[in-house]
């Protein structure tokens, strides 16, 4: 036991490793829940779990700001919206949908698997152009400055996209007044 802990890895690295693989496993399970579960609400919860897991991954990757935003957006907004969708279409989800998957199950599986195989074959063999982090990592201030300087145009555009989506959603979902 003691020897194991005294190997090359520092305790901090151990923590990272363990948390990463733990979280990864959890995320994969939750993701599978999302696509396989019959109860669509449970799927939504799975999505929430994936989102939280992703937030944790971001924290590990020193992206604090992004992690919190991820929680705020995904858990607070996206999953909530999906849950609402589930509630509002509950009858359809429960009653008529006997089958949860469609006719192209097998072929989809094959295609996705082949894509997966291709990439999983390629990822470890690729040499990534990584750098060792020196100096300050990007923090919220860096991001904010970047948003308002280099990326001001995309930032504005995305704001407009959001606004348009908002209006579009309202228009679509509104019942026509009789």
């Amino acid at each position, binding site marked *: 036991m003691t020897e194991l802990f005294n190997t090359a890895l520092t305790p901090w690295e151990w923590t990272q490793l363990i948390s990463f693989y733990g979280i990864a496993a959890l995320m994969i399970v939750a993701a599978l829940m999302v696509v396989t579960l019959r109860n669509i609400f449970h799927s939504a919860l799975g999505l929430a779990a994936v989102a939280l897991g992703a937030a944790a991954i971001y924290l590990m990757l020193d992206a604090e700001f992004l992690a919190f935003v991820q929680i705020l957006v995904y858990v607070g907004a996206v999953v909530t919206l999906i849950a609402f969708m589930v509630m509002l279409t509950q009858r359809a989800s429960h009653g008529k949908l006997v089958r949860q998957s*469609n006719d*192209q199950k097998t*072929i*989809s599986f094959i*295609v*996705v698997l*082949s*894509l997966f195989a*291709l*990439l999983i074959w*390629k990822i470890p063999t690729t040499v990534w152009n990584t750098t060792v982090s020196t100096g300050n990592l990007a923090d919220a201030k860096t991001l904010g400055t970047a948003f308002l300087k280099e990326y001001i145009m995309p930032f504005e555009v995305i704001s407009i996209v959001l606004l348009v989506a908002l209006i579009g959603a309202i228009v679509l979902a509104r019942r026509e007044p009789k």
Partner: protein
Amino acid sequence: MLNYTNLIPLIPLIPLASFVILILFGSRMKEKAAYVSIGAALAAFALSVPGIMMTLKHQSVHMEWIWLYLGDRPIKMGFMIDSLTAMMLFVVTFIGSLIHIYSVGYMHGDKRFSRYFAYLSLFFFSMLLIVLGDNLIMVFIGWEMVGLCSYLLISFWFERMSAARAGMKAFLANRVGDVGFLLAILSFFWMFGTVNFEQMAEKIHQYQGTMLVIPAVLLFCGAVGKSAQFPLHVWLPDAMEGPTPVSALIHAATMVAAGVYMVARSFFVFHGNIEAMQVVSYIGCFTAFMAATIALTQTDIKKVLAYSTLSQLGYMVMALGVGGYIAGPFHLMTHAFFKALLFLGAGSVIHGTGTQDIRQMGGLMKKMPITAWTFLAAFVAIAGLPPFAGFWSKDEILLSTFNSPVPGHLFLFAVGLFTEALTAFYMARVFFLTFLGDARDKEIHAHESPLVMTVPLAILAFFALFIGLPGSPMAGHWFQHWLQQSFPYMHAHEIHLNFGVMGASIFLALSGIGLAYLMYIKGTISPDKVAQSIRPLYIYSLNKWYWDEIYGMFLIKPFLWSTNALYAFDVWIVDGVVNGAAMVARGLGFLQFIFDKYIVDGIVNLFGWVTQKSSRIVRLVQTGIIQNYILLLVVGLALIVWFKILENMHAVL
């Protein structure tokens, strides 16, 4: 500094102030408005007196200021008073003031009384700009402004369509002349870089080229317009539509003489420029003769006087043309006095009788004695009887024509002499028909005009009689010597009396008067019979040589036609092209539509038919289910990834 030089601008500015006051508040002042205007005129006169005095002492006054910078080039404006200016100043302000006073009586009761005096003030201002200006631009500004005033005053009674038309005619005819003037200014600017009289005189003195003829003629064009010389003379007779004091002031004494003044002022352009002088003299001579012939037969008293003015102006222009640079201005001054007097007298007659037709008058001597006697004074002055004003100046003109360097000067001299006889004749005719004999129309109850009108008549009569004396041999040609200081670039030459010329002149004047006496007092020769015997000439003269008709036929009509044609061109062709482009675009659109429908669409339909048949099978792919599409998409993605990887491997290998 309150020295006199700085006061010069006030001479024109006081009338301008009067104009502004009257135009803004005149309607509230009623007839008191006249006092403002008269006051301004008298003030201008009073202010110009010291200037005139200084020229008597052989001094001149000059002031200038920089008006503006055009790029780096300063453009200066200035006022100057030398002897020529002083003479004009005297004429304008003195006669002008008298006519202002006279107008109070003449315009009494008019509904636009204050407006009339406002215009008079504006005219005063503009005329003084011409007179005082030391450069062509200043003169041009005043030139246009007097044209405007003339327009406003001719069409003063605009309810009469003829008055409105006459005003427009005057303005347009003037404008044609102004084009020449403006072009002359541009030419001088281009050639000498200045339009200041003194500097121009200097530069022209050094000028060696031959290009001066055209600018000189162009400059003369301005004078032709303003002084109503042939071929732009047609406006002046029509201008008699305006109130009679206006005719006296503007269309007899001052404004129309501005052309003569301007030519005299810029005489350095013409001096030694024989071609240009020829043009000037012949036009003047022709105008003088033509107008005199027309005046013979006119029956409207103002028309006769108008043609007489034309004729006299022609005389002055001819004088300048033949090199009589002093004779012209001299006649200008004498003419201003006696012609103003004639017009005012005619105005008094019209005021008293209510008609302008001399055939309806007669025997007014008893009813309107003051008017009659003053008219007589003017008559003897214009007829050229010694020793009255007209005689001296005309004699001067004839003399300089006789001695002129211009080719054909003897012909000009002959025509001049003959015209003098004509002048004496028609003036006598007017005088005899109006004042002597019996009253021909019993309906007319003539009465003498009020004092406010007759007093100016009397004053003018005095001057009309004796203003020529300073230029007479008795005074040792004092006037000519005085005026000479305005022409420093000319050699002053001795004036030799030529008694032959003098005698011929007196003889012809007397014979003209005598003929009129025989025809209209004695009745020994019947005017009707004379008219019958030379009927074509009579009709020709009565209809004013048909100038209006000729212009109407050959200028106005084609001109108006061309404007309409151009408008049609604009609407149908230029705009048509635009609309046509639109039409073509739409037509092309339609053609394309047809083409599209039958050819393109046909082919498409063919393909469509083929496709339809074949796609019965292929369309099964399109299920409407999005997920099928996504699947295909992903397959494609997988393939791309695959090929990409293969490629990279090749690259690596």
